[in-house]
């Protein structure tokens, strides 16, 4: 059973994620944040902002731990306490935002008409995942220590194609569920609106404000010495 859940399932999730996101991208039309702010804006501020800020900080924390576990294991006592307190606050912010988002969704008829089954599924998956995460952070101290020491080697072993299941099967059930939830989350990305974070607009920072698209090379096309191009323009 453990082999199935911690040895095979992560690979299923990652493969589905890659194939699914590429399949869904195709023309790019199916990638959107599917914002519902246009239909309801008042309640969104107190739900969307804490949710997004919380989940981004927590995900970044997990990711840094994954990349640089020594930063966590070498940290001193006071550092761990303040670090865990701050991240717990962001975790609470994320779950509070999510609960507000779900209340907003179920209370508002307009939002319900633009709600898909996958929206509801992913919200419950996230709710369970956040709940587990907070429970783990409070009850199984200090998470940043054993995450760096035990979980990171397991996660890394997945990427070296030699999953070290013994580490994770010795963990408490809450942690095991949290791991399964994480890979379920990755599996569901291509089938939900979560794809929008894959196309986060960082390129906006460096691009010039105005964009002009030419459908032909405006100078070359008039030059009788060069044959007209028959290749498609870059953006098509």
């Amino acid at each position, binding site marked *: 059973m453990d082999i199935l859940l911690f040895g095979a399932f992560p690979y299923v999730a990652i493969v589905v994620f890659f194939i699914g996101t590429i399949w869904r991208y195709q*023309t*790019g*039309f*199916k*990638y*959107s*944040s*599917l*914002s*519902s*702010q*246009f*239909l*309801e*804006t008042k309640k*969104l*501020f107190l739900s*969307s*902002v804490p*949710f*997004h*800020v919380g989940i981004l900080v927590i995900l970044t924390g997990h990711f840094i731990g994954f990349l640089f576990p020594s930063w966590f294991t070498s940290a001193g006592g006071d550092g761990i306490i303040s670090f865990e307190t701050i991240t717990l606050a962001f975790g609470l912010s994320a779950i509070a935002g999510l609960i507000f988002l779900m209340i907003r969704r179920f209370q508002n*008829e*307009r939002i*319900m*008409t*633009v709600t*898909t089954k*996958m*929206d509801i599924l992913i919200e419950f998956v996230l709710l369970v995942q956040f709940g587990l995460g907070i429970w783990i952070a409070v009850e199984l101290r200090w998470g940043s220590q054993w995450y760096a020491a035990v979980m990171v080697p397991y996660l890394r072993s997945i990427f070296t194609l030699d999953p070290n299941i013994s580490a994770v099967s010795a963990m408490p059930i809450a942690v095991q569920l949290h791991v399964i939830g994480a890979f379920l989350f990755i599996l569901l990305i291509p*089938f*939900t*609106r979560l794809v*929008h974070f894959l*196309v986060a*607009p960082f*390129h*906006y*920072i460096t*691009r010039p*404000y*105005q*964009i*002009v*698209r*030419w*459908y*032909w090379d*405006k*100078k070359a*096309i*008039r030059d009788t010495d060069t044959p*007209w191009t*028959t290749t*498609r*323009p870059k*953006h*098509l």
Partner: protein
Amino acid sequence: MDIRSQMSMVFHLDKCIGCHTCTVACKNIWTDREGAEYMWWNNVETKPGTGYPTKWEDQEIYKGGWEKHSSGNIALKGAGKRKGLLNIFYNPALPTIDDYYEPFTYKYLDLIESPQQDVQPVARPVSLITGKPIDIKMGPNWDDDLSGTPDFARKDPNLANLSAAEQEAMFQLERMAFFYLPRICNHCLNPACVASCPSGAIYKRGEDGVVLIDQSVCRGWRMCVTACPYKKTYYNWSTGKSEKCLLCFPRIEVGEAPACMHSCVGRIRYLGVMLYDADKIEQVASSDEKDLIQNQIDMYLDPHDPEVIAAAKANGIADSTLRAAQNSPIYKFVKEWKIALPLHAEFRTLPNLFYVPPMLPVMAMVGEQKGDSPKLHSVAKNWDDKWLYDTSLDEIFGTIENMRFPLKYMANLFGAGNEDLLADKLKKLMAIRIYRRHVTVGDISAEKSAAALADVNLTADEAEAIYKMTSLPKFNERFVIPAAHREQALEMLEATEEVKGNTGFGFTEPPVRGL
């Protein structure tokens, strides 16, 4: 010099009868589908009035357009790189559906399927979003013709800097007047929507300057809705993508006029090519407010100038486009005759839709007779009460300052607050009327008409040309549209066989949310 061609427009407001045929033509072709019911890419507003969405001109509410900072640079008021990315989870300046109206239909089937009963069946309104019965609070153009009503006309943002007395005078029953303001996307030279889009989905076409949203790149970050000061980008709540007027580019590429212009009953709309120097965009958009309009008009180049022609050809502009620019009705109205002005130039987007301001409020002028003050002219009608209704032409120049609409109101709309600019255009239009009255009716002497024309620096030939282009233009004089040169731009659209069978707005796959 980086010369580009731009499809530009002139709307002649004196000719607009407010029939909304343009709006219906546009709606039928482009926005009659789920998520787009509330979108009016073309709409006709009654002025004074609040417009669509409600009070769209008030940028303290909607935060649209550019603003000039003390450093001399311009920046987007409610979006841009810093504000746009910081507010990406929640856009505080996003209008919601209630700023427009909740789209609705009626349960017509209830009328037909109602069983026999003692009372008449009714068709209840149902929301087109939720499908549930709703109480309609607002609908498309419900402010139509409602000048003077407290809910609409008096909330016009253009009245903000008028004195209380001036506002009161506008809404006295005997003085009340209104005119129509048809609006489409301005296809600006310095578009705020393009600059605000985090995904880079919105772009200006290099060949003809049409501003479009790439549906496959749009991610629904919805900053364009905030940034466009004219509120002409709309968020499709069903597909999660923004949409806007596309100047009927599939039509203009084959030389057809856009649907709104083609169907215009009053023939108020003109479409043509303007050549401009793209190197100057930022500099002109950052001008001082008082110079904005003149600098923008100076930016458009003379298509007859050999230097301009040579530079345009070097830049790849086709001969047919140059010829269209030389015959452009827009060039005549804006540059030669100087009687058309952009709407709200102070938003600094350099709009390419110009308006000939309406004369109606000047012509039928009502003044309060003070004591024994003489009538302006012998033909002026003296009513039994103290009101003087003066349609005489003799002293009409003198009445521009006393027009029914304070000049300041018109200047807020078309002159970026500059009243002299407006007075200049209105005097020109009036001089042409005096001249034509002299020609056709003959009750105005040749000297008087010549003096009126001289006063505004017009020759009789020019006045005749303006009259002809205003009153008697043929279809191909109103719309001078160059070919899109598909033969040289094989990929201007998708390969045609790939889009065969697609209709309407042209989604290449069904617009469904999520999966």
